[in-house]
């Protein structure tokens, strides 16, 4: 296929619009979510979770330091988590610091307004995109690894290529490689829907209508833990994704996610 005259684009308009919607909504939801977490910085497994139940994870503010307690370990996080200094020089005893929360000060009601409004934007985008990708074959054609790609030899080679920072060029760059496919697919059909469902499983009204959510997550307190872990995994995905964009040519990558990018022109 002649790249110069091809009308095929690297990213469809639906992918591009959804991508930038997610940049916005995930940033807002992560930061407002961290503010909401600050209202009760303890996570539990099971149906109920409150003092004096035993949390498996918590950020505590002690007299002079902040600590993260997880799996029996105490980690000193003074200056970042639990106890930190705000931009006016005042020492705060709060879990997540002001520069990662929305709003920056403690305001649970406002953080919930941000979170729950953007949750609708995020959820609508996800449902529309997943529906369209199933319908037009994007999932099966572009994201589901082929049998050959899923072979250990191919996977191993792709992992080595990534570690050596050798990225596909030219025609091969117009397709997703197998690691990209697996990463995008697991985020698209696993992590992002899991984020929505574990969020819904924290609503007493939704639980009344869809009690199977309690079975799925093994309780309300567990759903809150899953929601938090999923958020951390999405942050991890975004960091790796950004690192890959930077390493493989950020201008080209960002331009093609805005304009679509012509296939065949290569990097």
């Amino acid at each position, binding site marked *: 296929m002649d790249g110069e005259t091809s009308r095929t684009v690297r990213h469809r308009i639906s992918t591009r619009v959804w991508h930038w919607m997610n940049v916005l909504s995930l940033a807002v939801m992560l930061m407002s979510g961290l503010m909401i977490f600050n209202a*009760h910085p303890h996570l539990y497994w099971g*149906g109920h979770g409150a003092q004096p139940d035993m949390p498996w994870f918590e950020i505590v503010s002690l007299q002079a330091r902040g600590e993260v307690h997880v799996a029996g370990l105490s980690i000193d996080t003074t200056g970042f988590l639990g106890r930190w200094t705000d931009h006016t020089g005042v020492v705060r005893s709060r879990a997540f610091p002001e520069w990662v929360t929305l709003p920056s000060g403690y305001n649970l009601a406002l953080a919930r*307004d941000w979170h729950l409004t953007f949750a609708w934007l995020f959820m609508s985008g996800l449902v529309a995109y997943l529906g369209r990708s199933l319908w037009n074959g994007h999932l099966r054609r572009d994201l589901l690894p082929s049998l050959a790609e899923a072979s250990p030899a191919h996977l191993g080679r792709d992992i080595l290529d990534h570690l050596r920072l050798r990225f596909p060029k030219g025609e091969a760059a117009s397709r997703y490689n197998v690691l990209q496919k697996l990463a995008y697919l697991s985020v698209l059909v696993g992590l992002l829907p899991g984020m929505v469902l574990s969020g819904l499983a924290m609503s007493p009204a939704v639980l*009344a209508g869809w009690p199977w959510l309690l079975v799925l997550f093994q309780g*309300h307190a567990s759903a809150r833990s899953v929601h938090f872990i999923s958020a951390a995994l999405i942050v991890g995905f975004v960091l790796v994704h950004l690192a890959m964009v930077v390493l493989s*040519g950020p201008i080209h990558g960002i331009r093609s996610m805005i304009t679509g990018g012509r296939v065949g022109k290569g990097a």
Partner: protein
Amino acid sequence: MGNLLTRRGFLAGLSVSAPAVLAGCDRLGASSGFRQSFLSWGEWLNYRAHRLLFADSLAPEFSEAEMSPVFRTNGNTMAGDQVYRRHLAEGFANWRLEVGGMVAKPMRLSLAELKTREAKTQITEHSCVEGWTAIGKWTGVPLWSILNEAGIAPEARYIVFYCADDFRGTSYYESIDMVDAMHPQTILAYGMNGGDLPEKHGAPIRLRVERQLGYKQAKFVMRIEAVAALEQIGGGRGGYWEDAGRYAWYAGI
């Protein structure tokens, strides 16, 4: 070299723009107009969607084995009101629940009278807006039966609960719509975990509206009133936390 520069430029761009975006979002959220016209969409959509999909759904109920060993308190753990203190000291023998507003037959019900009515017991989950949850057993009178007995007017749209507790002199109150008010699991609870409702949990009665968050579960309820609008009550937003902290009135999540 060119590539390195663009990489540096990209990272520098990120680190320069991020704080500016954060400050902008903070300012947007603080703007009353933006909050009212845009950030209220979540609450509006939640309310519509929940009413459309789950109007008659029952909140999950649990077994005794699943109950919290200790049910922590929410909100005020005592009410300082002098009249309330006297009732508490008298074991609520002379206390009356007032039922009024848009009803054909206003009522004053004693605790004993409430207890002679058909009771409902349910083990449900309490979800605090802060994120903690506790499972407890509640016994009380279904609100719908009281409202029917009082002859609620068809024009009534909300039930308001006036409480004996206060935050720095401002009385607690809450309100719910008729769907929640007539819901079979919405009860005026006088019993908790097999005993009388303790003071710290809102004696003599507290509202249990099981598909709602903790701050909707009004404690120390003295009077209930059927109304057509909430604007003239308290700060006009339908509840103490709605007025004082701009918490969502419907919430539900």
